[in-house]
């Protein structure tokens, strides 16, 4: 029986049948944890404004990962010429005529939208939301299910005081640990840093090495399938998230959906009948 994976191009896959069912079952577990946190569920757009990402110095820290949403210039003659003369080359590329300056990137991480959504708001108590999005990161090489250009990310995000965020992250991590023990995956939590461009010259990278703000759940010593991230007051300051005049902290737990699928296939084999069954009640 096929697992339900089609490779369309490097970094671009379709899943169906058994893998898609597995994806849905896993996501139902993660979503149930979000509901236990009383998280409000959001569906955000696929694009994120460059003006918002720039506030986070995203294009300084991660220019190599960004995929921009571009559109052609609206000039009628140019559009007419392009519609008649465009040609996809043998290497699969298409030369574009004049393009309009880009105002948006394709979302590189699901949680960014949350801070944009709540900009300037005050919260009397912890604000917890969840969202699942297709994220887009340009990489040097791609591996199906493990390192994709577009991939799915489920996140649960908490905005609150440092203590509230720490409690949230610890509780979320405990839920993952309990589930992992039942599932029997070979994983361990490790301190980690984000994939910064020119990291040695980026204070954020150095700070992440000095302060254990990011932990990854690493499968078989090679593949991060989830992460907890303590942003401290980074997003709170950038988007003016406050309580009683004090800037709030934030944190999130993120699940790389396709990577979970890969971890399960690598652990239990390519026969879907051998995959573990689980549901919300036993997670």
């Amino acid at each position, binding site marked *: 029986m096929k697992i339900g994976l089609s490779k369309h191009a490097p970094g671009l896959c379709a899943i169906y049948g058994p893998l898609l069912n597995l994806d849905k079952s896993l996501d139902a577990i993660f979503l149930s944890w979000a509901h236990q946190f009383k998280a409000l569920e959001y569906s955000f757009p696929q694009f994120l404004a460059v003006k918002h990402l720039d506030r986070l110095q995203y294009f300084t820290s991660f220019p190599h990962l960004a995929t921009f949403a571009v559109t052609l210039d609206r000039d009628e003659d140019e559009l007419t010429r392009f519609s008649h003369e465009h040609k996809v080359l043998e290497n699969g590329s298409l030369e574009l005529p004049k393009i309009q300056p880009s105002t948006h990137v394709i979302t590189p991480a699901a949680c960014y939208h949350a801070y944009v959504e709540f900009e300037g708001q005050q919260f009397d108590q912890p604000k917890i939301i969840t969202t699942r999005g297709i994220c887009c990161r340009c990489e040097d090489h791609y591996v199906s299910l493990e390192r994709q250009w577009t991939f799915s990310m489920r996140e649960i995000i908490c905005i609150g005081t440092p203590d509230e965020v720490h409690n949230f992250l610890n509780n979320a991590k405990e839920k993952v640990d309990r589930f992992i023990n039942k599932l029997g995956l070979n994983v361990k939590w490790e301190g980690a840093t984000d994939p910064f461009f020119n990291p040695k010259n980026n204070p954020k990278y*150095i*700070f992440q*090495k*000095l*302060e*254990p703000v990011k932990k990854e759940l690493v499968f078989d010593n090679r593949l991060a399938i989830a992460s907890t991230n303590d942003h401290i007051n980074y997003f709170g300051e950038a988007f003016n998230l406050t309580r009683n005049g004090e800037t709030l902290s934030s944190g999130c737990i993120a699940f790389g959906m396709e990577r979970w699928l890969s971890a399960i296939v690598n652990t239990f084999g390519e026969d879907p009948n051998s995959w573990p069954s689980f549901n919300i009640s036993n997670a």
Partner: protein
Amino acid sequence: MSNKIRKKLHAFIIENCESEISSLSDNTPIFESGLFKSVQIMDLILFVEEISGKEVDVEGLKPGAFKDIDTIIKNFVETEKKN
């Protein structure tokens, strides 16, 4: 030697800190207490390199290595004595 450097570190932190300092001891957490913002880590590293005369190996940094003045002295100034 390390006492002089300790004093220079005190002065540097007071001069560059982001908030008002009521007291600064050798064990006051520099980043956790909000004295410095995370983006100032580079300035602190460059200053430590300048006063210690040694390059800081960024890739080899361990969590907490710049926690407070005592820790900085132990990690980046007194290391030669151990060698």
